[in-house]
């Protein structure tokens, strides 16, 4: 059902170029970020996803809740997306609890993160660490292999 919903949304996006007035706060970028994170989380975990975003904004909460079960507590989450300047939450990274970031430098330096969605040269990028995927005994679907880097 979610696949159908996503397909129809994508079809709609292809034609929804025009608007009259953007009276409500603009959320399309966060919506696309949420969809990408959903794709990544679904490909990484074979179970229902409970997402924790530290210091989540009200707009993010509104959008992400359409795709995930959200939690305010790190311990209850199995996917943690750190997209702000935050100290690492006080719950360990395990095989069943994955940490993802939006900062490539954080990914390189902090072994808790297994991947990142970040911007570079005005383009969005996804990178997964091969070593950390192996450590967690994770296998990603074929169409994600292009994002795996050898570190």
């Amino acid at each position: 059902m979610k696949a159908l919903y996503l397909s129809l949304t994508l079809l709609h996006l292809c034609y929804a170029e025009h608007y009259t007035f953007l009276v409500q706060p603009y959320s399309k970028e966060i919506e696309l970020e949420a969809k990408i994170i959903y794709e990544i989380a679904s490909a990484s975990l074979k179970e229902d996803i409970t997402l924790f975003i530290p210091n989540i904004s009200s707009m993010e909460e509104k959008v992400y809740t359409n795709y995930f079960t959200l939690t305010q507590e790190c311990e209850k989450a199995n996917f943690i997306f750190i997209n702000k300047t935050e100290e690492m939450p006080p719950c360990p990274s395990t095989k069943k609890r994955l940490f993802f970031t939006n900062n490539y430098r954080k990914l390189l330096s902090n072994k808790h993160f297994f991947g990142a969605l970040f911007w570079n040269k005005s383009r969005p990028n996804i990178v997964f660490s091969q070593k950390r995927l192996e450590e967690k005994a994770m296998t990603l679907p074929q169409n994600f292999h292009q994002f795996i880097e050898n570190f």
Partner: protein
Amino acid sequence: MFRTILMLGLMSRLLFADTIDTLLEEYQSTAENSLQTINEKIGHVVIYSQKEIRLMQYRTLNDILKELPLFNINTNQFGLTNYSLTGSKTTTSGFFRFFINDHEISSGYDQSTSLSWSDLPLDFVDHVEIYYGESSFSFGNETGIYFVRIYTKSALKEDGSEIATWFSSKTGHSQSITNSQIFENGWSYLLFANQEKIKKKTLYNQQKLTSNGTKHYLFADISNETSKINLGYTDITKGNYTGLALDATPNDGENISKDFFLNYTHFLLEDKSLKANFSFDVNERSYEEINDQGINITPLITLSMPWSIPKNFEEDLRFTKSNAYVSKSFESDKNALILALNVKHKTYDVLKRKSTNFLNQTNEIDHYNSFKRETISSVLLQESYQLKEDLLVVANAKIDYYDRNAYLKDTDEKLLRIGAIYTPTPHFGFKAFYTQTALPPSFYNVDYTKKNAVNLKSQRYNFYTLEAVYTEGNSKFGLTFDHVEIDDFLYQTPIGFVNIDHTIKTDGLIFDYEYSFSKRDKLHLNYYTSTLSEQINNSTKGGFIKLMGGYQKFDYFTSLIYRNGYDYLGLDIPDSFDVSLGATYHVTKDLSYSLKASNILNKSTQSLYFTNFGSNAFALDDNDRSITFSFKWVF
């Protein structure tokens, strides 16, 4: 039924074959549409997105502004680009407020951006929003009736370096470098540096008028989630063009300007609803002119004593602006309230001013008058309320108190604005505003006031605007009407500024149509017409046709910008048809080469110039026909 489900299933499989790639492309394309900063509550907005800036090969801010409806862009007597309201031509204009991110960049002297920032390169710019409306209600800045918000690229999306350069067959060349980086602790920086050689040469009366020179721009943005520090610097050294010479052909002269600003914004509280902003600007400018036939420095000339006319003039001036702003927003489901305080202090110092008249007497001159300090204190409020699901009402009020050190009286101005945005269906939308604002005289207006005239007063603007938008499929239609009434308009006569003693009225109508063939290909048509209750000395009708798009590794565009002709003091100014076309070849995702031909028909707009205190007028082309080659490398 079964067939439909099968089709949907197939479509879903097809889409899912590359869902993640499609989503990434969509994410990029959405970001390039640059809609994240739009604020419909503060006026009627036109957006120049990152995508459009790239496809249309807009190199400088003026490439964008010259298309704008109800707006004229001319070359002034100093060879600088200047903006005027429809039907009129001004030498320096204070109607328009320009912002780089949160910082207002108009000159502290004459409220204009012409000298320092007018031809800003767009290499470090993400997108530009142009609002027909009063910015000061929301940002606390000085008043104006149009405003241009320039958003710089974000280090969070760049995190790399870029080299860009262009060479023009006529107008000079430019080199830019941008570097940005994100750190693990959440701080990021973006640095930009540019050098531009300006070439502008025209013949008048068999004499060469030149505005050749050099410009430099430096910009830095240092930010984290709650703080933003912007630093900007620009300098320009150039020829005087017609300058202030009574015969419009100065013997010699030079115009130098240096501008620096620091702007710091900090968001407080968990929901960032408390915003504090501090800024400081300093501008130094020097002007030198030598002309055997005399120089029109209004405050130094007594018309009954022709020998008082200067033939040699030089001045060094310094202006500073310090600004503090604090705002608190309160938001609920239906209600959004912003309360703010703003204090601005402006100073004007004469470092050197010297003039030699026809009797060869050289005089050192200090201030022309005693007006050299001004503090503006403002209280402002914006309330927007969702009356119904499809109806939003907006109300603004602002009180400005002007405390001047001398000459002009201290005054206060009460400004207000009410409006509504009505969207009865997803395809139909209406927006209407009534605005009452006042533009006070600047240091420049007071320096160049007509001798023996009574003290200058603020110009009072009352304007009504109505916009209707209809979207259907890939089309978007827009219709905008405005009616403006101006009391005490500040008009520059050949012998100085005066307040016009009657109400000036102007009406404008803009028709706009966009058709998107695809996400990359777009046709855009625009036509406007206007009336003005005064004698016109600039275009009153205009429009454009733009076609932009791409195929595989190529981007291309073509455009026609039209402005109507007019008669003024026996001069017949013809219609202008500025046709441009260009193409970009993307060698890789990171390297591209572009070629652009501008003003192909050589039918540029023309600007009026005057000699001998306005007794004669003549017109010169604003732009030459030219070809520009550029390249961009991201690494």
